[in-house]
Structures are given as C-alpha cells and as structure tokens.
C-alpha cells in the first residue's frame, strides 16, 4: 500500500490548467522530491496530495484511504492530525516563543500545554537549536527559524510531511543543513516526505526524484 498517491489528477484555476493528469505514488517512509520549472504545477500537486486543494478530476489517497472525497472539515482534521507542513519561510507565529511554535500542532490537537512543551523540547537538541527555546521568531536567523518550522512539522509524528521549497529562502550552506536534518529526522521517525523544490542539490537528498512538466509527472527520472 502506498502512503501518499495521486491518480490521474487534473485541476484548473479558472481557464488555466495546472495539472493535466498527474500521477505519483509515494511508498511509506520514502522521501520523494518533486521537481520542475516554475509554473509546471509542482506546488499544486503538493497541495492536492496534502488535501489542501481538491482536484477537478482524479483521486488522492493517503494510507489506503481516498481523501479528495472527504468534506472540507474532515480534510482539515486529517491535515491537523496526520500531516506535517514546512513552507519556504518558516511561517512561525511571531507572538509565540520557538518552543510554543514547535508545540503548536500538539496544542491544536488538544494536548495540555505542559505535556506539549515537554514533547517539543527534545527537538531543540535534535535540530541543533539548544538555548533558543524562548526566542521569538524575530530573534531567530533564517536557518534557525526553518529548523523550528521543521520541528513543528514533525513533532506530532505525522504520517506524511509536506515541504514546499523548504530551503528556498536560505543560503546554500544553511539550506543543506536544514535538508540534512530533515532527511535524518524523517528517516529516524519513518515519516513519508513529499518535498517540492526547483533546486537539484536539494532534490539530491531525496530517495527519488520526479519531474512535473506541463502539469504531468514525468516518471522517467529513475537513474
């Protein structure tokens, strides 16, 4: 059984087709990089896989279950309970400290504050962030903020982590540190990862790369 799968997905924004029959299957624990030129549909595909967008045609499956036919409310619960997200710039909540940001998915899932913070703290050592627990996002460097965002994406032990250009706002060395930690943490946790990037050096961290071109997935890339 695949962990995350799109089957012949089509989606248009108004008159403009973004996906024209895209299919991709990601195995449990696999890290897949979705590459492609800008405007190719790679982020749209990620948003469909993550249940954020619903395709016009085609199916999205997670863990053997079809999710594109679920109501918006049920998809929202699924995203909160089972998925983690990392975006280009951390998108941390500026009013919260770093550890509160990491604990946020647990707090939203109803975990008590003390227990959520206890769960969040080990991630600071794992991601080389020790000592930064009480800082707010404005007091963190880009690389630190992105590692906090990564901890937040993984803290609830999601079934799948969706990352959209997670190193896009970082310099190349910092970006590589974030990728290194993302891959190590995901492998330790057995988390399935779908990663969108236009950067081949970032994609090279993945187990497998696929290319989206003109709204379709080119699976030829299996070197």
């Amino acid at each position, binding site marked *: 059984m695949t962990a995350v799968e799109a089957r012949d997905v089509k989606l248009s924004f108004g008159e403009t087709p973004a996906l024209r029959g895209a299919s991709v299957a990601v195995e449990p624990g696999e890290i897949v990089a979705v590459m492609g030129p800008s405007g190719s549909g790679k982020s749209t595909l990620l948003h469909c896989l993550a249940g954020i967008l619903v395709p016009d045609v085609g199916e999205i499956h997670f863990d053997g279950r079809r999710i594109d036919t679920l109501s918006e409310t049920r998809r929202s619960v699924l995203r909160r309970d089972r998925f983690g997200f990392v975006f280009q710039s951390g998108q941390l909540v500026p009013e919260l400290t770093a550890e509160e940001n990491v604990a946020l998915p647990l707090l939203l899932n109803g975990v008590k504050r003390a227990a959520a913070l206890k769960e969040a703290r080990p991630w600071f050592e794992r991601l080389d962030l020790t000592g930064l627990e009480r800082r707010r996002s404005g007091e963190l460097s880009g690389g630190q903020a992105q590692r906090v965002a990564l901890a937040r994406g993984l803290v609830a032990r999601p079934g799948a982590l969706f990352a959209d250009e997670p190193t896009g706002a970082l310099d190349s060395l910092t970006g590589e540190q974030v990728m290194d930690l993302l891959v190590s943490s995901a492998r330790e946790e057995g988390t399935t990862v779908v990663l969108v990037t236009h950067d*081949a*050096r970032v*994609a090279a961290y993945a187990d497998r*790369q696929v290319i989206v071109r003109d709204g379709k997935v*080119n699976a030829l890339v299996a*070197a």
Partner: protein
Amino acid sequence: MTLLGLLDREPSHGYDLKRDYDAFFSRGKPLPFGQVYATLSRLARDGKIVIGEVEPGVGPERKRYVITERGATEVESWLTEPVPAEPNLQTVLFTKVVLALMLGRPAEDYLDRQRAAHLGRMKELTEIKRSGTLVDAMLADHGLFHLEADLHWIDTTAARLDALAKEVRG
C-alpha cells in the same frame, strides 16, 4: 564519434566533414586535416565507414566516405546513451544534442536520460557528503556544483530544442 555522426547524415568528403565539424563543434579550434584523415582511416579500419566512389578531378582525388551499418548502429547507441555524470562534460553533452538534432533524432529523450543520470550521481555524492568527512564533503561539493551547472544547461537546452533544431539543420 562526431565525424562518424556527421557521416550518418550523408556520405561526405574529408574536406566537407572538416568544414562542418569546424562550423558546429570546433569552438574556435579548427580540426587539423591530418586528424580528420587519421580518424577516417581508423574508422575505415574498424569497419564503421567505407570509401565510396573516388571522384577524379583537378588536384588530389576526392574520396567519398560512407557510413556502414556498424557505424550507424554505433552512432545510434552513442546518441541515446547518457554520459557517466562527471564534472566538465559540456563538450560531449553539446555534441550529442547538436548531432541528434542534425540527424532528426529525439534529443529531448536523450536530455531526459542525461538528466536522470546526473540526478542519480548527485544523489550518490550527497550521500557521500552526509556520511563522510568534511574533506569528502568538499570533494563531493565540487562535483555537485558542476553537475548542477550541467543540469541548468540541460533544462535551458530542452526549452530551446525547436529553435536549435532549425538552426543546425539549416
């Protein structure tokens, strides 16, 4: 391989081959006649080309070289096969694309295969970087940056294949 590829278009004389080679592939360093004829005799010796009719005329006789089945097969497989992904491949990547377009072969398929070979090698180098010493990482980085540059070139070329085909086919 480039001369053999040019002969896969049509039978040709040494002089014409040199002229076409210089026009498309020499990049400012014309091919010496000596090298053209040495290569042609080696190709003939290996059964990849034969000497067709000899055209008498003023001055030296002009030999017409014709590609054999064996030579054509070799060109075909060379054009579809990705190069092992190592740094500094510009010349050979460029030659494969231009020759494929001249011969009406699917250059895009070749570029896809080459892209896959490059990404595969980048993955290996990244693994070396993650598991090795800093020295290993520095060496791997050197390879990665070069392969990344090739990939940019592959993507840009793929986007311009139609225009490039028109130019090289005249």
